[in-house]
């Protein structure tokens, strides 16, 4: 009887831990978001880039984009909510816009085109996957060091 009771408790404990792990999978998923302030074309229409855009996440300015620039921010979780401070033209007053959008779980890096976003186009328009370009440095074979004699400096 006691064994059974223990089994139940153990099962429950394992389930709880598995549940925590699952939650971590969801809330801990990291994405890198790239913000593009670039002129883009969609459905044959052109969307002009802005003069200046500041991206504010969690009350912190994570990127400041001039015309035709790209900025980057790290994100944890599947919902991106940022405030964009947009200056349309030089000298104009900036107006801010709060944006909040779901991010697909499977993508590591995502490029968001701000002009298209601000124009209210659908997600597939302004959101593209970021594909890293392999640099030539990466191509070089890395010598794996499994030498244990090394004196580790940092402890």
């Amino acid at each position, binding site marked *: 009887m006691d064994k059974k009771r223990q089994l139940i408790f153990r099962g429950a404990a394992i389930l709880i831990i598995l549940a925590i792990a699952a939650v971590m999978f969801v809330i801990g998923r990291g994405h890198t978001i790239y913000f593009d302030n670039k002129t883009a074309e969609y459905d044959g229409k052109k969307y002009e880039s802005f003069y200046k855009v500041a991206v504010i996440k969690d009350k912190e300015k994570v990127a400041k984009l001039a015309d035709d620039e790209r900025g980057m921010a790290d994100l944890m979780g599947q919902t991106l909510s940022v405030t964009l401070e947009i200056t349309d033209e030089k000298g104009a007053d900036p107006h801010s816009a709060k944006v909040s959008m779901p991010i697909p779980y499977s993508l590591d890096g995502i490029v968001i085109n701000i002009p298209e976003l601000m124009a209210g186009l659908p997600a597939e328009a302004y959101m593209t996957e970021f594909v890293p370009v392999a640099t030539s440095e990466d191509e070089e074979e890395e010598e794996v060091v*499994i030498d*244990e*004699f*090394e*004196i580790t400096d940092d402890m």
Partner: protein
Amino acid sequence: MTMKERITASLKEFGLPRLIITGFLVLLLIIAPFVGSDLPTQISNIINRFSWNGILVLAMVPMVHSGCGLNFGLPLGIISGLLGATISIEMGFTGGMSFVVAILVATPFALVFGSLYGWLLNKIKGGEMMIATYVGFSSVSLMCMMWLVLPYHSPNMVWGLSGKGLRTTISLEGYFDQALAGIAQINIGNISIPTGTLLFFALLAFAIWAFLHTKTGTAMTAVGSNPKFAKAAGINVDRIRMLSVVMSTWLAAVGILVYEQGFGFIQLYMAPFYMALPAVSAILIGGASVNKASIMNVIVGTILFQGIVTMTPTVMNNMIHMDMSEVIRIIASMGMILFALTRKTEASR
């Protein structure tokens, strides 16, 4: 006992890890020609590496015989050898003479270090192996400082810029590079046999074999087999153990010099650190146990161990295009040591 029982019993005696390792090497040798690696070159490599490492493995024998266990403190002897080598060069000897002087200089160091080490091991009977390991480590790291501080001046050894402190690697060209290997070297096609080194190993191996047949050698084996028996038979157990430690240390000193003459370089600083482990696993692979070892174990073990070290990279690489040799070497040798340490039947006392 039926035939089957006898076979299983002898297999058990031989030990599964040992069987796997031997089988693995045989497999490598069979596969080698098919995957396009040159067998003569391989065999030549094995012989060469055997000649470099044989004496370091031989250095295990006296301490195992006297019951001090596997000599994890091998680096202490190696340091004596390194001191011999560097001092010989510093004194300006060159060529074969520098090798002789290196051995002569290394000897007093080995005797002093060995005596201290033996005295210490007599104080801590039963815990030899762990303490030997750390005595080795401490002495290597102490010497790391010494190599920087000691007043060496030979431009071939010190750092070029500052003019002081020994380099990590010192080339032996012009000194005792190939000092033994060069003697009566035989070259047939791809095979080159370092006759001198092999003879030198044979000489020392014979000396140890002969020693074990003398009165004192017999006493040493008895001390290792049953110290209480030896004490009751009037043997000074501590003195015999001390002698075995000094012998092991001296052999390690000579062993590293032979290794260097074959390898062509002196490696200082942290290099001696883990040198005990290959030697320990080699002798165990050869069939020795924590308290029994013979010259045959040394020869077989060194060939098997070096065979795996030299064969795996080429054969594996040619076969599956993956160089797993390092990993295989670590798992095989450490597995062998673990096996030896966990065997209950190892000691009947």
